[in-house]
């Protein structure tokens, strides 16, 4: 495993699915993440909490994936919440001034209360 690998694990709850991410969301990892999240949406899982606490790097490829997934879940009446984003990663959203496109929560527990 290289340091750029991204680990993805999912946990289904009654009202939503939590997707735990750990690693780096770069141009290599983003297509696989995009594929897995679309698989969930295709299964009708459109309320997604992305546990970002373990993500220490994101590039535009990762942001692009989140833009596409946000649009897809909203189109089906769901929502995507980014939970526990660390400062270094939050800075990328702030830099692009697109933080208002996304819903953030400080933790998975806080995200669950938003659903």
């Amino acid at each position: 495993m290289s340091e750029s690998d991204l680990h993805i694990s999912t946990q289904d709850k009654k009202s939503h699915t939590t997707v735990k991410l750990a690693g780096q969301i770069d141009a290599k990892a983003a297509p696989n993440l995009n594929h897995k999240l679309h698989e969930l949406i295709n299964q009708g899982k459109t309320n997604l909490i992305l546990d970002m606490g373990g993500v220490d790097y994101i590039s535009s490829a990762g942001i692009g994936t989140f833009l596409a997934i946000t649009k897809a879940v909203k189109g089906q009446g769901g929502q995507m919440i980014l939970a526990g984003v660390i400062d270094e990663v939050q800075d990328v959203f702030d830099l692009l001034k697109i933080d208002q496109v996304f819903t953030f929560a400080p933790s998975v527990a806080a995200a669950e209360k938003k659903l």
Partner: protein
Amino acid sequence: MSQSLTIPKTLPKSQEARTWLSSMLHSEFAEDFSPKERNRILLSLDEAITNIVDHSQQASTIEITLERHNDSIKVVIVDDGEPFDPLTYPAPAMEDHLQGKDHGLGIHILLQIMEAQYSRSDNKNYLVLTKKIT
């Protein structure tokens, strides 16, 4: 100080370049830039390299040179692909983001962080990126 790395135009090698750049920024510029600024510089360089890997049809290699000057960091990225001037690429609009589109996001990040100059010479693209030490 001047250090160079040449990689073949592949995604795995662009990750290796990021690791190298991260190490260089940490070792050579730790006192010049805050951790946040170093992260931003690393991101911008990753975006510049990834853009060549993703979109250049003809490039075979990418050469990255990192120079330390008294008041700035200078990074020169050279590829042997078809002409492409990122400075002329339009910035994405918010409406595009809301539609789930991400075209031009990487270049937008790059130009938000670094001063950029583009030139074409000897059938190569030269992208010179600088950031002043504040």
